């Protein structure tokens, strides 16, 4: 007989993927069972039908679990100065009760991550991002009168997006939400506690993000879900969200750029100007990490890449396609692409090697490899550089928001 193995003191390895606070609700809804690991947590690529989930974002309302996003809390009198050292934009200009999209770099000016910075109070911030950055944040905070804590597990997050998202909030009893302007945030009462609602999102549509203590996650879900049913609120997975974000022209760390701390090949890192974030770089504010390198690269003209939006002839999505100049010279690669159902256009986000995309912007082609029943159809299609976002929806920014 084989003796039972002794139980190790820790069982963490038995749960390679953790569950988010919303897991019981998502598991009950999941029809496709298309689970994947997002930052070590069980997440869904799709809940029931990717196409229909996309249309929930654009036509009714969609609920997406963003709990796996890394969430850092920076508090204390020195937090504004510390975050100004960390990030590219001027945090002094971020008023309490507002959110801004920002990014941060290493000393060489290579982007470590992008994310949203929430100013919850004058000396209280939350930073949300894809990657894990606690050591970097702690080292940046050294010498500043502030504390940095990782609250990823303690705080659950939901994105409520789509034309009916405000109507769902209103129906769920979040009175006063109508006055929230884009990038504004406020606390609302919930079950004796509170939920922070910001008018933000990753879809380019009217939408909100809600942050709540993990133990109040399920009651928040239920509150939105029951209020949202008459409005056709749907739970969605990442694939639908990804389509919407491409239409909105947003970039994703790890997909459209390789974070500097993860790049294995030293030439695969990107400066802000190389991924379309040049507008964030505030050289007039106080110093920040990477400032010197970015200013030098601009002065010396050593920027190597550029991120562009492409409009491609034909209707086959150009995912992973190689971009050519004059159909011959390799000019870059497509990092995200879809056939946009709303725009009825074939759009893509591409990373080009300068001068393609900067000086040479005409005569670009993409070579799409479409696998059609064990044979690749090689399509060489003309592509045009177009501004991002591809899709601009007036309802996204109208205040008060529509009910639709």
């Amino acid at each position: 007989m084989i003796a039972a193995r002794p139980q190790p003191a820790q069982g963490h390895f038995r749960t390679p993927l953790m569950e988010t606070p919303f897991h019981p609700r998502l598991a009950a809804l999941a029809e496709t069972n298309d689970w994947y690991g997002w930052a070590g947590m069980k997440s869904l690529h799709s809940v029931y039908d990717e196409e229909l989930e996309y249309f929930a974002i654009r036509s009714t309302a969609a609920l997406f679990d963003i709990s796996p996003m890394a969430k850092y809390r920076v508090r204390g009198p020195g937090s504004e100065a510390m975050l100004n050292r960390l990030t590219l934009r001027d945090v002094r200009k971020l008023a309490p009760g507002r959110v801004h999209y920002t990014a941060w770099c290493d000393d060489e000016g290579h982007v470590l991550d992008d994310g949203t910075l929430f100013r919850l109070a004058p000396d209280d911030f939350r930073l949300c991002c894809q990657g894990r950055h606690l050591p970097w944040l702690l080292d940046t905070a050294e010498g500043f009168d502030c504390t940095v804590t990782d609250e990823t597990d303690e705080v659950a997050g939901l994105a409520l997006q789509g034309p009916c998202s405000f109507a769902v909030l209103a129906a769920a009893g979040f009175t006063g939400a109508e006055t929230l302007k884009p990038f504004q945030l406020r606390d609302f009462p919930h079950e004796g506690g509170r939920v922070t609602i910001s008018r933000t999102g990753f879809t380019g549509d009217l939408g909100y993000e809600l942050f709540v203590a993990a133990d109040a996650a399920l009651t928040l879900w239920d509150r939105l879900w029951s209020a949202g049913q008459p409005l056709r609120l749907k739970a969605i997975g990442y694939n639908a969200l990804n389509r919407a974000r491409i239409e909105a022209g947003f970039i994703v760390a790890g997909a459209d750029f390789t974070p500097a701390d993860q790049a294995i090949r030293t030439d695969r890192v990107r400066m802000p100007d190389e991924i379309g974030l040049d507008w964030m770089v505030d050289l007039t504010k106080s110093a920040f990490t990477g400032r010197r390198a970015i200013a030098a690269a601009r002065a010396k003209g050593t920027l190597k890449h550029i991120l562009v939006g492409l409009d491609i002839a034909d209707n086959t999505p150009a995912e992973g396609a190689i971009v050519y100049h004059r159909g011959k010279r390799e000019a870059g690669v497509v990092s995200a692409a879809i056939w946009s159902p709303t725009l009825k256009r074939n759009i893509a986000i591409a990373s080009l090697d300068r001068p393609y995309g900067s000086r040479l912007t005409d005569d670009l082609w993409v070579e799409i490899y479409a696998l059609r029943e064990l044979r690749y159809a090689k399509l060489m299609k003309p592509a045009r550089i177009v501004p991002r976002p591809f899709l601009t929806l007036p309802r996204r920014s109208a205040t008060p928001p529509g009910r639709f």
Partner: protein
Amino acid sequence: MTSCDAIVIGGGHNGLTAATVLAKAGRRVMLFEAGALGGTMATVEVAPGYRSSALSHLVNRLAPEVVAATGLEMTCLAAPPAPTVVLGDGDPVILRGGYGARLEGVGAEEALAFASLRAKLMGQAAILGRMLGHRPPMPGDFGLGDAWHLGLTGLAVLRKGRAEARDLMRMILTNVADVADEYLTDDRLKGLLSFDATLGAHLGPRSPGSLLGLHYRLTGSAGGVAGGQIVPRGGMGTLAAAFVSAAERAGVELRPGTRVARIEAVQGRATAVTLAGGEVVSAPVIVSAIHPGTTFLRLVDPAEIDTGLTRAFRRHRSKGNVAKLNLALNHIPAFGGLAEADLAGRIVIARSTDHVESAFNPAKYGAFSPDPAIEVVLPSLGQPEMAAKGCTLSALIQFAPYDLKEGWAGGAPRLLDTVLDILDRHAPGLRAGVIAADLLPPTEIEARCGLPGGHWHHGEMTPDQLLFNRPVHAAAGYATPLDGLFLASAGSHPGGGISGLPGLNAARHVLEVAR
């Protein structure tokens, strides 16, 4: 607000050198020194009427180009090279001339073996020494001048022939213990090489790379003699005074007793310093000739520098391993039963490689050895004005780790007791003749000299912290990530010891880039 062309922070010999060279080039220079001018070079009273060298006590690498560039007055060093006496078991060995050009106390065969090892190391040091007198080559920012210097160094290697070039590459990162074993049989000589290679470092003779410390020592010279050493007349304070008067002659405005509290910077450029008293002085050039870690972790606002730079300085290894002892004695100690003339240089108590290695072992674990290796200098010898009756003794004790587990408050008296016992064994009656004793562990050196870690070189001299990585990569080559701020202390290339080269190289770089 007061302003000038260049501010120098720190009045050690490197700060004084940089200030003098800048002033001679026509810049209006102000130098701020927290304590007394001279840094580790000072002459102190151990007891009324007994004067010794406060910290450093020997001159063996003061660079001729520094003397020329500053116009340094050298009378206190006008002497032939002083001998080194090695005290091990049995009779002493005496090295005369430049690092034992002549040997006494070993057999003819061993003397020949030493001569061939000495020639080998001196030849290699002459090549490596070419890299010390100018800015280190910076990868990614490699200029014509760098190519020229590197080319010359390469030629110098090749001129010695393929076999020598190969040998240099074989030996350069090896340890002193193996090299000593390769050539020598005499334990006292091996002990001396082990001691000299590791003095001031957190390395034992068997640690990889320890030979480099010996190479570095042999790149130095005194009185024009390679490997030579001189005990300055009047103690190190006289040499400090010479540096000070060179600076005064050049027109440097010297402000001793003035601590710099902050380096002000705006958007990536250093603009001014704020003094401890609150006064602000601005200048387009600020040369920091104090410990580089202090410069970036204490004086500069972290908001003004990149996170990676803070990280690099937090990892910078700079914890001292040497304690200093000054004694006032009522007699001249008869070390090894030798004549006074033979004791006019230094006396090294290092019996063997094993002795030095065992002295190092406890240092790895935050303790000192009950049997440390010791270098002794008698600064007052032949100078009644330094000690009218008797003698002063200056000793360096290796190893005395900065982070002593038991704490130096209790550790210092125990170490003093240990050291006095050892000295008494080699110079019977010494202990009974002690009038006053002052033992400075690294923590005390740190406190008295504003030298974090109390480190000899302002940072370990291992390959990870040399050349274009000295003190850290982003701040190597004297320029720093803050425009207008330059580094010039021993923490920068080429490193520590009384050479003046970091100060000179830094000043020359400033003159080149900040016209």
